């Protein structure tokens, strides 16, 4: 169960699976089979001025078409051609900025508050019911409320990121602080270390891996939520980009956006994973 398999075997199988999947897709889409069920009469289309070349157009884009489009988008990801037309890189940057703001704010609130909750069983018991009820509330249910009360869409988006990513950090910080080993606290006590010294030199580093686990969950949620929030609020961001491409039903762009969202999400996760490794300690 813990056997190790050479990396090249895994990579080969990965590549093989990817190849098979893309190949099957290319073929399936090429045959036009995966269509909409509404067979289009090419002559009808011709009457409407469709170029004959488009007779073979398929409803779902083929991987090769997507690759071409991807190349187009990535050749110039940061262009800004007016307010309604900006490169995909610009959109991702907008989303990342919002996530950074909301997530940063959440960390600023959650970590000190989590610390307090972790240290005080009373506070922990008293706040728990509220946390438990608010935690499962969907970000998009918050959005209308935020828009209405905050009256600023930029801050509303950030608030929604905030409110969704605050819970895992809060709970994990509290849990991490609660489960600092008694023996380390005893060491600090026998050394007559003061409250602040104990908090910063013992409890914080001891709880850091747990806190970072919470932050990692949070950033994942924040990234899920930003796309949803931007679809709803619009204006800029990768979520708005998806929304726009959906309105135009341009499937290649949506597939590309999905990939991009996945990859950026993965990178965010990896980045926090790296920080997590930095503060991790082994026993």
């Amino acid at each position, binding site marked *: 169960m813990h056997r190790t398999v050479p990396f090249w075997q895994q990579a080969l199988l990965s590549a093989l699976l990817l190849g098979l999947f893309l190949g099957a897709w290319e073929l399936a889409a090429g045959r036009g089979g995966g269509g909409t069920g509404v067979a*289009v009469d090419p002559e009808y289309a011709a009457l409407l001025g469709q170029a004959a070349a488009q007779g073979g157009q398929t409803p779902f884009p083929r991987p090769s078409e997507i690759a071409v489009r991807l190349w187009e988008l990535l050749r110039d990801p940061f262009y800004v051609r007016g307010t309604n037309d900006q490169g995909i890189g610009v959109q991702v940057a907008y989303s990342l900025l919002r996530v950074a703001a909301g997530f940063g704010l959440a960390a600023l609130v959650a970590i000190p508050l989590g610390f307090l909750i972790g240290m005080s069983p009373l506070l922990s018991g008293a706040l728990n019911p509220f946390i438990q009820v608010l935690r499962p509330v969907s970000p998009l249910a918050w959005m209308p409320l935020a828009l209405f009360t905050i009256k600023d869409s930029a801050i509303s988006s950030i608030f929604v990121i905030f409110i969704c990513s605050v819970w895992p950090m809060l709970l994990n910080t509290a849990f991490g602080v609660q489960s600092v080993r008694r023996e380390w606290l005893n060491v600090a006590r026998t050394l007559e270390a003061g409250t602040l010294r104990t908090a910063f030199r013992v409890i914080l580093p001891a709880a850091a891996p747990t806190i970072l686990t919470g932050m990692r969950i949070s950033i994942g949620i924040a990234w899920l939520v930003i796309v949803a929030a931007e679809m709803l609020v619009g204006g800029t961001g990768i979520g708005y980009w998806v929304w726009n491409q959906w309105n135009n039903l341009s499937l290649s762009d949506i597939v590309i956006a999905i990939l991009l969202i996945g990859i950026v999400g993965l990178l965010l996760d990896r980045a926090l994973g790296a920080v997590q490794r930095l503060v991790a300690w082994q026993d």
Partner: protein
Amino acid sequence: ACGRDHGALACDGAPPADGTGAFGEAAEQAVIRAVFPEDATRRGLLARFGAAAVAGAISQFLPLGAAREALAQPAGAPEKKDLKIGFIPITCATPIIMAHPMGFYGRHGLNVEVIRTAGWAVIRDRSIAREYDAAHMLAPMPVAMSLGVGVAQPIPWAVAAVENINGQAITLANKHKDRRDPKQWKGFRFAVPFDFSMHNYLLRHYLAEHGLDPDRDVQIRAVPPPEMVANLRADNIDGYLGPDPFNQRAVFDGVGFIHILTKELWDGHPCCAFAVPRSMITETPNTFAALMRAIVEATAHSQKPENRREVATAISGQNYLNQPETVVNQVLTGTFADGLGQVRRVPDRIGFDPFPWHSMAIWILTQMRRWGQVQRDLDYAQVAQQTFLALDAGKAMRELGLPVPASATRTETIMGRPFDPAAPVGWTERAIRGA
């Protein structure tokens, strides 16, 4: 593919001008197929001479007119009675909606479920998926879908009837009360319901006429109409050219004011459409006919000023618009608060006229071209004919004793400038001021 399935329409390049419409085309098609059973031959002929010419030639020796008449008679009971129709909760959908509580569908033997839907993209997707048998769409949507613009492949839908004319407005946030001149609007963020909407085209035209470049000087984004007020209140947008009741709702909640009614831009412009898949006409012609009659009747009923209050009551509830009745009332009666302290009385603020003028479609096409949604050359008249079913609507109107225009085109007046559908080219340029 002529002669197979519903391909009939496709072969009829120039439908007769006498108003026999799609039924006639089907009959004609059947005849052409009977005369030239060989596919290749038939296609060759059609390609060379066009369907009209071929039909004309055939009618020299066959009683084509009679066949058309026979096939065009409404042949009794609808093939399919249980229908689902999607709508967006706005007053543009009034005929579609009020036909439900007020029994117009039932009167024509149909059992219709009207389903409130969250946005235009969802309307489009559920229509393509045939979850909806027919739908409330923005007038440009069936055109775009048929052209394969904004969809993955051409999907032949058509405007069977126009739902409403006028009835839109530009609403601005209250903080802009002192900026009534569009030249002051640089940097504004506007919402329109959808990229393929009259709202988008009208707003762009309006801005361009005042010297703003809609793509650079302002931001225009697609926001589902119901979300517009909330976004205006949240200062997420500075204004919108949107459907009612959301213009009036902004006033009602003290969030915005009505800057201008679209009636003042283009009196009689179309907004929303009653859209059907083209296949419905050939596959379930009786259902189609019954539905047309119900919609046309409901439209006519909604148009009468004396019915407007009753209609407002019928559609304001939870099941339909889910809006305060007074708001809907102000929209339908045209006596409304403008958000600037005035009570305005514009009885024709919104109108209901089902006839799908081809000239409307042609203007829509020029704007699609103008703003880069369509990049190739189009035969505007052809496309208009295929997607705006003036003949079928006219037939239903005639059956209900309503006056039917003699021609499907007319000269429109848009912001004081005449639009001649026969000479549309000037309207495709980004800057038409100087044209």
